[in-house]
């Protein structure tokens, strides 16, 4: 039986980030992925690197990770583009809350700036008139997530990590069993996102469907990742379905349009009513988008843990099984920090940030 220090199940951005960091720390790593590299939620994601200030633990992990992303700004296949985030206030009430947000971000070292209506239009002339203002986070960026997953995997493989293109059928006493009957021995780290319950049913995981639309190339029309300040209500609310204005300029000149959140839809089929809601929301902020052509629409599923924070650490009742999954919509942003948090714990080291909020034990306890 082949033996490894760590067998990582899943080659999405979380699994590949873990493989990259573990191999860098000298671990002998296997990574098991039957599908395309970064082909699940990673491929479906927008790739916005963003600090959300709504939850302190989430903010800490995002901020830690954003620092780690700085090492990847020059890698071509990642398409790192520091376009900045522009949070848009549609009402005076939303505008009034911006200083609190700026203070929360500043507390962890993220620089954000309050801008008024006039400045908003100077930054984004395509925005609808009448908006109250916004918050500009200049150092945030967008990336191409599947490119990052491949890059991380390539680095890990260059250090000797092995890729198995099989499916894991079971976690065993020694390690894992694959669908071609081979067994691998070693510690197991499950990073399979929405598919987590197949291997670890004790950890609650829900799939939250999202839709994205991408346009043809219209360079220069928008310049920043644009979000409505009400975005957090959609992201963190628990409504069966919600949409929020969330639009991104791709380096190609294409415009990527989000976002929707939906529980209870199991198929990957595109829902035209959801697309209509999403686009109507978009047109309120960016009426100029109406005349542009959409090339593709796709859907994806965000893995949502019991409390919305990822499971990062050892799985209770198992001595040798670890988990890194459940990042909802922040998996791309927090991938690098998540990998360090888990692997540092595996190595018995103190993590760089407080690991307790992500301890999987919290979820097992409440089942």
């Amino acid at each position, binding site marked *: 039986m082949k033996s490894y220090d760590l067998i990582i199940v899943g080659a999405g951005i979380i699994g590949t980030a873990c493989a990259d960091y573990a191999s860098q720390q000298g671990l002998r790593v296997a990574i098991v992925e039957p599908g395309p590299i970064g082909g699940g939620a990673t491929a479906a994601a927008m790739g916005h690197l963003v600090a959300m200030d709504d939850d302190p633990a989430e903010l800490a992990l995002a901020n830690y990770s954003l620092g780690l992303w700085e090492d990847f700004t020059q890698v071509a296949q990642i398409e790192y583009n520091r376009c900045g985030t522009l949070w848009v206030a549609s009402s005076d009430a939303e505008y009034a809350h911006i200083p609190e947000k700026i203070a929360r971000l500043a507390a962890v070292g993220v620089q954000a700036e309050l801008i008024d209506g006039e400045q908003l239009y100077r930054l984004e002339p395509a925005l609808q008139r009448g908006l109250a203002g916004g918050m500009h986070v200049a150092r945030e960026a967008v990336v191409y997530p599947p490119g990052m997953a491949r890059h991380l995997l390539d680095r890990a493989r260059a250090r000797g990590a092995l890729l198995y293109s099989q499916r894991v059928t079971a976690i065993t006493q020694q390690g894992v069993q694959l669908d071609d009957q081979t067994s691998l021995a070693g510690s197991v780290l499950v990073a399979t996102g929405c598919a987590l319950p197949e291997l670890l049913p004790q950890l609650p995981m829900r799939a939250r469907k999202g839709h994205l639309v991408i346009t*043809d*190339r*219209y360079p220069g029309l928008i310049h920043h990742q644009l979000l409505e300040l009400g975005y957090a209500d959609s992201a963190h609310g628990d409504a069966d379905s919600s949409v929020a204005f969330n639009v991104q300029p791709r380096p190609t000149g294409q415009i990527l349009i989000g976002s929707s959140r939906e529980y209870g839809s199991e198929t990957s089929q595109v829902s035209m009513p959801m697309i209509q809601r999403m686009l109507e929301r978009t047109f309120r902020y960016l009426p100029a988008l109406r*005349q*542009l*052509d959409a090339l593709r629409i796709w859907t994806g599923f965000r893995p949502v843990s019991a409390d919305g924070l990822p499971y990062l650490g050892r799985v209770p009742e198992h001595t040798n099984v670890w988990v890194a999954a459940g990042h909802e919509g922040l998996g791309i942003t927090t991938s690098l920090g998540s990998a360090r948090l888990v692997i540092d714990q595996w190595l018995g080291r103190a993590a760089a940030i407080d690991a307790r909020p992500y301890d999987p034990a919290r979820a097992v306890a409440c089942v």
Partner: protein
Amino acid sequence: MTQVRINIDGHALDVPAGISVAAAIAQSQRPFRRSVSGHMRAPFCGMGICFECRVQIDGIAQQRSCMVSVRDGMQVVTDG
């Protein structure tokens, strides 16, 4: 055949009514578009499948010139 006047890249051009914008551009001997890596391209499939003939028509980019007929006063901008 009745003629309409269109404008391609700032040049006025009288063309027969009913012809495609692609045909009008070809008559004007203007180029069509540059590919994403900068190479010149022109109509290829002729029937709206390949999207090689895209130009800007009346302010809206990425329109298939083989699928649109000329209209009097139309403003066409190519990548030339």
